[in-house]
């Protein structure tokens, strides 16, 4: 599964790198790695999230972040209109501007885009959600969330062929014309699928563990349906979303996905060199 230096050549498929959003996570390592890969001639798209920074800003503005749980136990943010405004402030505003600034300072010709820009990421609006509250099933309406389904590939490839590194963050543009929250892993997966690229999901653990309690059980790779099923079974909580994103990327046309540790010294190069859990 090791790709060593071949991973950064111009003959490789586009690389889609999903990183966390907050500068606090210190993305310096991954920024240097992106610069290295771009300098070697490979096309790169960077995708970032930043949900914890949204919570911090909501709290700084005196508003409590709201999370809901669906009847089957999936937890997620409920994004009302005011929260949506703060979401746009933090992701395409503060975090994307910082990340593009830092990438450019490292010599990367980054252009920041939200999914709204040029209709880059579109799909159905999900304004109502079933939730479980105090044991009651309820319908909550007014959620500003959507499911990323389509990409303006022309905008992306035009920027890539002009030598830019698109640096993408939610929100996406929903089919009702509103800007809405979307899962950044899923946006990255959709872009990887569209570009036939390789997807690197950097996270705060080494990869998928067969037993999350036991770091010795890291799953190195999954190439067969049985191996993938084992990864799916093993992934819990936020990791199960990354595995779902991997699945969507691969079924949509991505060449491979790796879930790896953002905390390594050269996290992107390490992932390309075989660290983490590879799925293809």
């Amino acid at each position, binding site marked *: 599964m090791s790709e060593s230096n071949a991973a950064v050549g111009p003959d490789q498929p586009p690389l889609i790198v999903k990183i966390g959003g907050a500068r606090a996570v210190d993305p310096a390592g991954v920024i240097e790695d992106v610069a290295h890969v771009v300098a070697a001639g490979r096309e790169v798209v960077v995708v970032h999230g930043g949900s914890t920074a949204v919570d911090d800003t909501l709290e700084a503005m005196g508003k409590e972040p709201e999370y809901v749980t*669906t*009847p*089957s136990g*999936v937890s*997620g943010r409920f994004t009302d209109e005011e929260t949506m405004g703060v979401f746009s402030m933090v992701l395409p505003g503060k975090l994307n501007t910082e990340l593009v600034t830092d990438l450019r300072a490292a010599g990367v010709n980054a252009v920041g885009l939200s999914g709204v820009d040029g209709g880059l990421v579109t799909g159905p609006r*999900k304004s*109502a*959600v*079933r939730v479980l509250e105090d044991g*009651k*099933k*309820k*319908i*909550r*309406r007014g959620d500003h*969330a959507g*499911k990323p389904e389509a990409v303006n590939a022309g905008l992306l490839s035009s920027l890539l062929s002009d030598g830019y590194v698109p640096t993408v963050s939610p929100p996406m543009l929903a089919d009702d014309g509103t800007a809405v929250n*979307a*899962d950044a*892993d*899923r946006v990255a997966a959709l872009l990887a699928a569209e570009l036939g690229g390789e997807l690197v999901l950097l996270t705060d653990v080494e990869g998928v563990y067969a037993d999350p309690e036991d770091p010795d059980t890291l799953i190195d790779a999954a190439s067969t349906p049985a191996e993938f099923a084992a990864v799916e079974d093993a992934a819990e909580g936020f990791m*199960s*979303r990354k595995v*779902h*994103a991997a699945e969507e990327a691969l079924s949509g046309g991505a060449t491979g996905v790796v879930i790896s540790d953002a905390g390594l010294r050269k996290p992107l190069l390490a992932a390309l060199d075989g660290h983490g859990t590879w799925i293809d």
Partner: protein
Amino acid sequence: MSEADCVTCGAAVALPEDAEVGEIVDCGGCGTELEVVGVDPAELAEAPDLAEDWGE
């Protein structure tokens, strides 16, 4: 305790004491999931079938 008619089968459906707008109740007659859209007076509508999505 108030009640309202099921929009599917017409059966009377009893609402819990503390029913809230948005709450989902099941019709005892036909099993339809009903959304409480009003409490005073009680009013029911068919609850939208929202596919639960992993990336919610």
